């Protein structure tokens, strides 16, 4: 059944809020913005919280219409297909960036040598398969993984937080607001993930109770902010010490004494990584539905497989992973901002247009002949 229950919607909101931000983002922010990365993170969290509220409101007000039906009713078949293709291609790009982040993490933290493209192939195959399945599959996986993710984060937090001097977060804005504005304008690719939930428009049960997903989003951001603050406070004076991919694993190693007891922090990370799998699966699923809407049934599935192949080929030719990350901050941030923050705005416009059209139709029907 291609629907999400209320509980599934809430857990997926939580997982999406965490997933892409756990790898490179804290280190990226620290190296780019210094300690003011904390300010950037808070502002982005607030923006994403508003985004989440808007997305849920769209889903509630859509009254059973899917995202594509909404766009088509408002803007017509051709415009809606153009919009959908652009959105679909963006999600494919985001999936590629996410897989680069995963490769960097495993290359720098887990393995001794850089992870080759072939290591990612099983994951891409699995994501393509996942994208063909109904939404309820993602929901069910989310329900299964979320307890493990929550336990792992609580454990890491309990072991880590007490050892950190949070005074190291200060001083904030020591160099004015420039680091903050630079950070805000460059990191769109790693935020705005709640727009993915628009895929559940017309397919989520619960009605207004869907707003219960807001605390889930807050919880996800609270975890992210806490762990990032640990990193910012500890490495605020020496951001050059960190490489992409070290991220939170540096702090957790330090805190849990892994040199004494072994790398059980990696076991905890493995549970946390399940959030990444669900999130990337939803990105793949969104792409698949976009292609299905634009091209229809069989061709849509072919486009999905072609998309997966394109991601893999791009991965094969990606030698310098750090360069991709930097490109995402320079060249891909505008498309990221436009799609992730613009699509909900477009949906609100579509809802308004649809409502106006419906009102006009009702008035015309009631008007005496």
């Amino acid at each position, binding site marked *: 059944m291609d629907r999400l229950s209320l509980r599934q919607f809430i857990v997926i909101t939580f997982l999406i809020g965490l997933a892409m931000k756990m790898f490179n983002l804290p280190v990226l922010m620290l190296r780019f913005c210094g300690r003011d990365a904390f300010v950037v993170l808070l502002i982005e969290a607030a923006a994403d919280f508003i985004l989440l509220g808007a997305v849920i409101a769209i889903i509630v007000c859509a009254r059973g219409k899917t995202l594509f039906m909404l766009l088509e009713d408002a803007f017509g078949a051709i415009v809606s297909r153009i919009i959908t293709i652009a959105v679909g291609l963006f999600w494919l790009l985001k999936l590629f960036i996410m897989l680069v982040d995963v490769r960097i993490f495993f290359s720098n933290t887990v393995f001794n040598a850089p992870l080759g493209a072939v290591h990612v192939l099983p994951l891409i195959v699995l994501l393509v398969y996942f994208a063909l399945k109904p939404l309820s599959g993602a929901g069910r996986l989310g329900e299964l993984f979320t307890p493990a993710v929550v336990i792992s984060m609580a454990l890491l937090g309990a072991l880590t937080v007490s050892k950190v001097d949070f005074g190291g977060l200060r001083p904030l804005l020591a160099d004015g607001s420039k680091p903050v504005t630079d950070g805000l304008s460059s990191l769109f690719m790693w935020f705005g993930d709640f727009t993915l939930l628009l895929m559940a428009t017309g397919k989520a049960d619960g009605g207004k109770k869907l707003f219960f997903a807001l605390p889930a989003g807050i919880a996800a951001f609270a975890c992210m902010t806490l762990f990032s603050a640990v990193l910012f406070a500890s490495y605020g004076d020496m951001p050059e010490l960190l490489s992409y991919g070290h991220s939170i694993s540096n702090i957790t190693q*330090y805190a849990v004494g892994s040199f004494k007891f072994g790398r059980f922090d990696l076991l905890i990370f493995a549970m946390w990584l399940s959030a990444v799998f669900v999130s990337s699966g939803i990105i793949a699923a969104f792409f698949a539905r976009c292609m299905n809407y634009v091209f229809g049934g069989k061709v849509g599935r072919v486009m999905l497989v072609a998309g997966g192949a394109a991601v893999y080929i791009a991965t094969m030719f990606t030698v310098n992973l750090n360069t991709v990350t930097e490109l995402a901050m320079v060249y891909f941030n505008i498309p990221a901002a436009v799609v992730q923050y613009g699509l909900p705005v477009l949906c609100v416009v579509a809802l308004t247009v649809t409502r106006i059209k419906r009102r006009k139709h009702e008035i015309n029907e009631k008007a005496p002949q």
Partner: protein
Amino acid sequence: MKLTRKRRNSLLSAAFAVVFVMLALTPLLPEAEISTRLMLNVVGIDTADGTVRVTAQTMNGTSSETVHGEGLRIGDALEDIAVRYGREPELGHCGLLVFGYEVTADDTEFALMGLLGDAIVNAGCSVVCADGTAEEFVNSAVGLTSAAGDSIADFAGFADTSAAVSVPSALEVLQHLKSKSATAILPVFELAAKKGESGEGSSQNSGTDSTGVQQDGGSDKTEILPPRRAKVLGRETFEPDEQAVLGWMWISGRAEGGLVETRADLDGKEYIIQGSATDKSRGIKVRAEDGRVKAELKLEVRIKFIDRYIIIERAEGENVLRYLAEDLQNAFSATFKSQLEAFAALSPRSDVLGIGTLLYRESPRAYADWGGDMEKVDYTFDVKVTVF
């Protein structure tokens, strides 16, 4: 034969279970990766004439020995070890970094940046300073602790929980060196040759007897002493005196205090009163005022005094006992205050209290106006002791 959905799902689940079990059992395979590595548990670092010399303890099961390497930087020295011994050094389980006594703040910072930057060692591994060269320390200590079946790192970890001078982690040392104060303090571990019996308890603030005693050929014994000395790495590199070290112990976040003593005048007679520090809370507040920096050091300690009944016996009645407690509190307060003052007096040489860092966090502008002149810092001490 067409598979039903249920059957297909069962087969898929079984396939996943088989793959998972196979992956989970891979640790039972021959230890190919581990056997090609040289597991280094303790690394000693000396610098001389622009060269970094590494002496490391490697353990395989219960046997323990030392390996050596040299290079221009720490990374080069580790590569030298790989070339000499034909195995790549693995520092993931390194629990202790020992710097030689002559190593400077810059050398320490450089070495730690090299080790932590590439995540070669865990950021939580302990960092200490040897009384002589790190090479001498590691060579002697290896034989010493391997007799007990431990690594030197285990001993350092034990000492940290009970000694006066706390053992910082690599990350903490680097944080202090890279901060505005640019000063870190390392405990000094020394080896001492002792004749006769081992296990003598030390007097003030040791909290533990020495351990790790090895019997050499004759009656001489060598032991690793729990650290009671410290080395300051900052603008100047020096060793503070005992009173200043005790002052550092009170103001540092990690050490608890252990055994303390003071001299108290009771009814015209001087007594040496010993106690055990049970709770400690401390803090430093800084603020800029009229171009100067006001630093307030605060310390609250609860002391449980030992030999309490001997003292009580000398008191007559409850009233005298109350005044007695007051006298003891005043005596301990005065002692701790003088120790804090001795530590603060080191500030003109290196910013041991972290005044610069605290002021910068409070107000970067005030920090810039202050300019880092430690002579422009005024200290006040608020010491409160409760004796029970």
